[in-house]
């Protein structure tokens, strides 16, 4: 089962990523063309949701004992189009690797759930 800290991060990563992609590839061209409405609404939403992204991303990096530089990369990934999606893919696979290694490490001493 997926732990809550990873699930929260994944939800926020996709939310901010989709909003940013809409902002950059729809909102900004429309703004340049003279219709700033989409950019204003989506930009504001992305701004506030990015704060939540920061919070859950930081929680996940701490749970996974990720070093400082990579933590900063994960945090700013939410401001780069497609960045949050790439970060989410990497962190999810690494999380499952870590969980598998932890299970293997304890296999001899404690019964493990399947």
């Amino acid at each position, binding site marked *: 089962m997926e732990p809550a800290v990873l699930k929260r991060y994944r939800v926020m990563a996709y939310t901010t990523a989709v909003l940013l992609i809409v902002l950059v590839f729809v909102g900004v061209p429309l703004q340049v063309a003279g219709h700033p409405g989409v950019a*204003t609404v989506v930009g504001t939403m992305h701004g506030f949701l990015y*704060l939540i992204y920061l919070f859950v991303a930081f929680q996940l990096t701490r749970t996974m004992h990720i070093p400082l530089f990579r933590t*900063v990369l994960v945090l700013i990934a939410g401001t780069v189009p497609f960045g949050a999606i790439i970060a989410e893919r990497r962190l999810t696979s690494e999380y499952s690797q870590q*969980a598998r290694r932890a299970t293997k490490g*304890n296999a*001899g001493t404690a019964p493990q759930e399947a």
Partner: protein
Amino acid sequence: MSDREPPRRPFDRRRWFTPRALVAHAALIVWVPGCAIASWWQVGIGLSGDSLGWIYSVMWPCFALFGTVFWWHFVHDDPDTIGRRGLRRLQRDAALESAGQPEPVEPDVREIALARAEAEDPELADYNAYLAALAREARPGSRRGR
């Protein structure tokens, strides 16, 4: 993954001066004034009539606050628990600890009762010791017979 969180080591003030912490200090020194300048710049945009500026002028102090919280965590981390190597070390420690400590054994009520009875009755104790010695002779391989 909280199930394999180890007990934390006590904080050591030298951690404030590890390379990791020094990088965090430097980043904070740049980040907080940077956020203040950005916020002020957005206030200017807000004053010029763009209401989006007001929203961002609130957001930048939030970023500064988050940066400060992150900095606090970075400088108080145990450097030996960071990264893949730190994680491996934690897992190894946890495995060693669980291997070194045997399962807690429940006290055997029969032995407690026997010890109590022997304490009250020295003759019974002598007789039991005699029986135990006989049993040891009969089974030399066993460490204790009773």
